[in-house]
């Protein structure tokens, strides 16, 4: 099935694509047919910068289990670091 569903998110960071590093501005997450992965449906994540054109894109196609494991890994990594360390607004006031 084509779900047509797309969850969009604003992103601040960088990604390395086919043409090297670029600044990230947007992300999209959707559960649908993959382009490359050998599964019928996958969780597809696009890291993009539409301002740099459609080729400014890093694409990931994950199984549901992998996607959830990735979410958990991100949460664990953030929990293990001082709060605010990777925040766009810099370290939280009072942090060493």
């Amino acid at each position, binding site marked *: 099935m084509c779900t047509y569903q797309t969850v969009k998110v604003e992103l601040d960071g960088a990604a390395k694509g086919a043409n090297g590093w670029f600044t990230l501005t947007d992300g999209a997450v959707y559960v649908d*047919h993959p382009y490359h992965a*050998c599964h019928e449906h996958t969780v597809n994540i696009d890291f993009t910068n539409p301002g740099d054109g459609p080729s400014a894109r890093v694409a990931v196609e994950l199984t549901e289990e992998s996607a959830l494991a990735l979410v958990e890994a991100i949460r664990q990594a953030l929990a293990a670091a001082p709060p605010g360390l990777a925040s766009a607004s810099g370290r939280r006031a009072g942090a060493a």
Partner: protein
Amino acid sequence: MSDAIWAGTVAVTGHGDAELEAYLARPLGDAPRGGVVVIHHMPGYDPGTKEFVRTFAAHGYAAIAPNLYSREGAGVSPDDQAAAARAKGGVPDEQLVGDVAGAAAHLSSLDHANGRIGVIGHCSGGRQAFLAACELDIDAAVDCYGAFVVKDPPEEYPTMAGSIVAKAPNLSCPLLGLFGEEDRFPAPDEVAELDAELTRLGKEHEFHTYPEAGHAFFAVERPAFRPAAAKDGWEKIFAFYGRHLNA
């Protein structure tokens, strides 16, 4: 009879006079032939779609698949184009109709065209094949497991693809529908509803639902591929086009 074909990229004029990339395949012989517009699925203008196009040419038709995501930029890989188009909400129905019309006009302009045009689409393209057949003067349409023809998508699906069954009275040609019994979009009840509506309207149609097949059973490079259903489906397609596209 010669089985030689030509295949390659051409330019066609789509909706709003946009120049679209398109993949054309046609026999090299000089026998009169019908044309087939192949509507690619949501993942885009991919190798599987081009293989469908060549298959029609190998069976004597001129076939063309317009890249519906051409507007995302020339020289951009098809998967990146698909992602960019998706992020913008997909292809509007009006644009799709214009692009199919442009592709059909290109086929009609070719030498040895017999003036008959078929459309076929898979997945989202199945819905779009039905749409094109309601909006354009087509001679035969094939809908392979297109969802959201009768039913609207669930509310949490932010998509432009909504029910188009209200257009069914304008269906311009016979419709062949090929579906998988295990598919959820479209599920068998949606297929049955479309079947009943076309019967009520007196529209010529032929539906087949294959057991032990789900969505995308024609896609040889995907786990959903079901050889028995695909083999029989291709036979149904060529028999159908043989009846309606050969002048």
